[in-house]
């Protein structure tokens, strides 16, 4: 009896409670409906073109594929070793930095991949593993992340890494090998990482120009165009680099301003010197094809972040890169000047932007 009553009461209670819950649910639903906007509300414009940061970076990577292929042909296993090591250590450095700074991951923008490949392509093929890793860490950590990551850096990260190696290991960074001779001994390029005793050392076309160089047997232009010369990993083949450059220009990933400024000014500079003293200076076309001139003009100097904003400024910046490179090559102690000239112009880029930014249509706003 007792239990019956209590049961009834329970029934009553639970009915009322159920009803209440249902009512509450309805109210909650309504509140949810009211507070949750049914429509996406956001600022315009609501359309955009297809380019994204990632797409731009992937374009650069695709453009470097022909140069990579030539690098493997010319320098063998070292090409894969350098590029692979740079990739792993650059990506790992960026990942760790984001982890320490408690920031969301940024590997997805692919900018670290581009830095890694450009750094690898600018290193001597026989550079030992530890140096490659150190250079990659310097490129990403000192070159990019301590400034605040992508877009904040003043200097081109890959060139910062290379400059670090140049100062830390000057001998390793100026030890060059001859292209792999696939016919004679296919095992030679497989010289184990860091143990490059088998590799035949050979001066680069640019070191041959310097006074006191042992062998002054300059390669003919055809060799420079194809790229079977000694030099940094990815810089030797003019034709492969130009192939990628055409792709970048066609995709509008880069514009013509920086490359034209840099190559044009370098040719004019070298041309004047050549005409003034043909015995002392070499044909300007040689300077165009040798060293990192083409690689620098289309892939390093055109780095979006570290170059000026305005098109006019980019032209000036390109001219600065070209002239400084030629000054170092022809009057400095270093045989090559692309890295230093680009780093110097990187430092000037904000100033160039400041002085070349256009006035608004219709004039400045009057105070």
């Amino acid at each position: 009896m007792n239990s019956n009553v209590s049961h009834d009461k329970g029934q009553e209670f639970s009915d009322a409670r159920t009803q209440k819950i249902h009512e509450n649910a309805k109210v909650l639903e309504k509140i949810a409906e009211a507070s949750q906007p049914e429509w996406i509300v956001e600022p315009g414009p609501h359309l955009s073109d297809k380019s994204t940061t990632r797409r731009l970076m992937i374009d650069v990577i695709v453009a470097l594929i022909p140069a990579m292929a030539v690098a493997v042909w010319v320098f063998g296993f070292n090409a894969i070793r350098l590029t692979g090591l740079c990739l792993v250590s650059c990506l790992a450095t960026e990942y760790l930095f984001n982890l320490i700074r408690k920031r969301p991951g940024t590997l997805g923008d692919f900018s670290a991949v581009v830095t890694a490949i450009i750094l690898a392509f600018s290193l001597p093929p026989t550079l030992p593993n530890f140096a490659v890793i150190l250079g990659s860490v310097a490129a990403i950590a000192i070159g990019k992340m301590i400034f605040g990551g992508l877009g904040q850096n003043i200097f081109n990260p890959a060139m910062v890494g290379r400059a670090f190696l140049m100062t830390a290991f000057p001998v390793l960074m100026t030890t060059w090998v001859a292209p792999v001779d696939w016919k004679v001994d296919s095992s030679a390029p497989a010289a184990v990482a860091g143990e490059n005793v088998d590799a035949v050392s050979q001066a680069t076309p640019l070191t041959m120009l310097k006074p006191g160089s042992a062998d002054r047997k300059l390669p003919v232009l055809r060799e420079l165009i194809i790229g079977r010369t000694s030099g940094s990993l990815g810089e030797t083949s003019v034709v492969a680099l130009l192939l990628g450059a055409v792709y970048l220009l066609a995709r509008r990933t880069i514009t013509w301003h920086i490359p034209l400024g840099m190559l044009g000014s370098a040719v004019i500079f070298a041309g004047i010197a050549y005409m003034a003293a043909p015995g002392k200076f070499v044909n300007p076309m040689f300077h165009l094809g040798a060293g990192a001139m083409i690689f620098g003009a289309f892939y390093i100097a055109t780095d979006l972040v570290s170059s000026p904003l305005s098109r006019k400024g980019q032209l000036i910046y390109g001219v600065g890169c070209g002239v400084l490179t030629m000054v170092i090559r022809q009057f400095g102690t270093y045989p090559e000047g692309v890295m230093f000239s680009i780093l110097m112009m990187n430092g000037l880029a904000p100033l160039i932007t400041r002085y070349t930014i256009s006035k608004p249509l219709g004039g400045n706003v009057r105070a």
Partner: protein
Amino acid sequence: MIAEKLIAKMTRKKVFPRGIHPNDSKSATCEQPITPLAWPAEVTIPLQQHIGAPASPMVTPRQDVKKGEQIAAAGGFVSAPVHSGVGGKVGPLTTCLVPTGKRVPAVSIKTQSVPSEEQLQAELEEYLSPAGEVRPIGELSPETIIESAQNAGLVGMGGATFPTHVKLKIGPNKTIDTIVINGSECEPFLTADDRLMQQAPSLVVRGLELAMRATGASRGVIAIEDNKRKAIESMRQAVAGKSNLEVAVCMTKYPMGGERQLLPAVLGRVIPTGGLPLDVGVVVLNVATSISLAHAVDRGRPVTHRVLTVTGAVNRPGNFFVPIGTPISWVIEQAGGLRKDAAMVLMGGPMMGVTMPDLSIPVIKGTSGITVLSRSEVRKMDQTACIKCGRCVENCPLKLSPTRIAHAVKMGDLELAESFNLMACCECGCCSYVCPARMPLVQYLKSGKAAVLRKRAAAKAASTK
């Protein structure tokens, strides 16, 4: 840019430097004739659909109003009266949201004696045809024309909603030599002006001639983008034999319809920063405004309806003749309802249109279209840091540096932003469109401009105290 200039020169088309080329997406509605929209059960007519002072209501609740009756009087010179496009019983005075996001006073009217389809069609046909007997232009004084525009509640129907009579009343020390009818309709998706030029060309010309008479201008130009071939053809026929009128064919490019781009392209005149077309001797009128001016003068017809495009993710996209105050939800329902993938409702087009949080917002005098974007069309916001690519700088039609200004605004340094000419921005959105880092650049610029205006207002208030 050089190639484009050459092509423009060879084809005798008009173009301005920089700007962008979004897909125009006009094919869904550009062949759809204008159709009248059935009256909704209730309209909510905002009393401030224009720039300037709000209008003050002239009706009381439960009063009957007739179609075309004035329901609010202008609140000053820079203001416009409001008329009802439907007949019915006035409900309580309320407020409503307008597309700009402001809540303004409004009059709601429950429609009564709803017209039949034939009656609606007849009204539309009357709207699209010239008045039977019109007074020759020479007999009308500029004052009469301006007064008619003022009484009709005429405002810029391209979206800016500036009272037209203020625009046409030229000060004593200014001269106007040219009127430009802006038929460029550069906003993707929208085709209302295109249809009006095809279906009512003589009214566009009549409005242009009236505006020329009112301002003393001797030259009239109708500017149309080259993706509207039929409109160009019909307007050319309408101006044939009139030596002072011409049709200027512009290249299709966004934002051609902005005054600061249109005038350099069509007339080679650059509006000074902070100035108006008036400063270079020009008044620019939208196609729909021109037609409404003709109606105001020749028929005494107030602005109670407008033609707008309903397009995108709706089942029957088209161009409709809509009474002002009709809620968006009703307009969309008449256009066949929303498609399942509809994600975003815009008043206007996708470039400068405003997202609607609520579909009860009414159509106003400046509503040129309702665009519904589908889930796949909505801009993805996978934002990265600015990579300083300079594309916003390269494409800004006003030659500004959006990324530098946006960063200054982001840092809260309004003075720096102003020194980068923040206040010159026309908010066209080209910078956001091209940005590979997907930064909401134009949004930073808009909020920066608003902050500067607030700061100035506060300084002014402090100095007057």
